[in-house]
């Protein structure tokens, strides 16, 4: 049960947050189709630190960029998006 420090609300339980995707899988509206599909359908899926997008969906609704380790679950940074 992660404790995620929301930049607006302070540390809150994971229950309030929703994982969206990795930062490198964001599909921009003006991406060419091959770029978009590659972003959408492939992941590095690192067994280490990765950059992720989460939202404080059940709290203030803020979208967040987390750097988080996939083995230890340690959150190294949280920034508002």
């Amino acid at each position, binding site marked *: 049960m992660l404790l995620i420090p929301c*930049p*607006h*609300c*302070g540390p*809150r*339980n994971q*229950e*309030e947050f929703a994982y969206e995707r990795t930062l490198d899988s964001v599909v921009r509206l003006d991406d060419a189709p091959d770029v978009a599909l590659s972003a959408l359908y492939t992941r590095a899926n690192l067994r280490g630190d990765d950059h992720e997008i989460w939202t404080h969906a*059940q*709290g*203030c*609704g*803020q979208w967040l960029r987390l750097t988080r380790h996939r083995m230890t679950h340690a959150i190294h940074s949280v920034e*508002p998006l």
Partner: protein
Amino acid sequence: MTDVIASPAGALFALDLWHSADPAAVAAAISLALPAPGQAVEDERGTVLRLSRQRWWLLGDGFADLAHDSALTDHGVISAVGGGWTRVQMTRPDWRALLMTSGLIDAEHPDFGPGSTAISLLCHVRCVIHVRAAQACDIFVPASYTDHCLAQWRGQ
């Protein structure tokens, strides 16, 4: 229990400022104190609660006119949202303990005193919490979930 009272939120407005807006400047422009994160302020028109980085709630009939305040239009927008919320007023000394049965927020923290606000899951429902006094707390519950939450808070 009479110390858990539910009523429609009534005159409740959402004030959304653009990401680029400076809250302090807006506050000055529309003569309205815009509280910092986690806080609420009250004036003669009603209560202003901070909900998120860009959203405040204005509770009170006195805020209705702001929707047409031209000083605001460059910075944000106001929308009536009160139909969607039930205001549950807890006026019992153990309201903090009650919240601790329904969610995972530190309602017992010494800093979570009068004038504090928070949004969190209570009874699995996203609720807005406003501490009004040491022994009084308002919980704003999405209206359709009112019965679900009250049943738990009233011990049914």
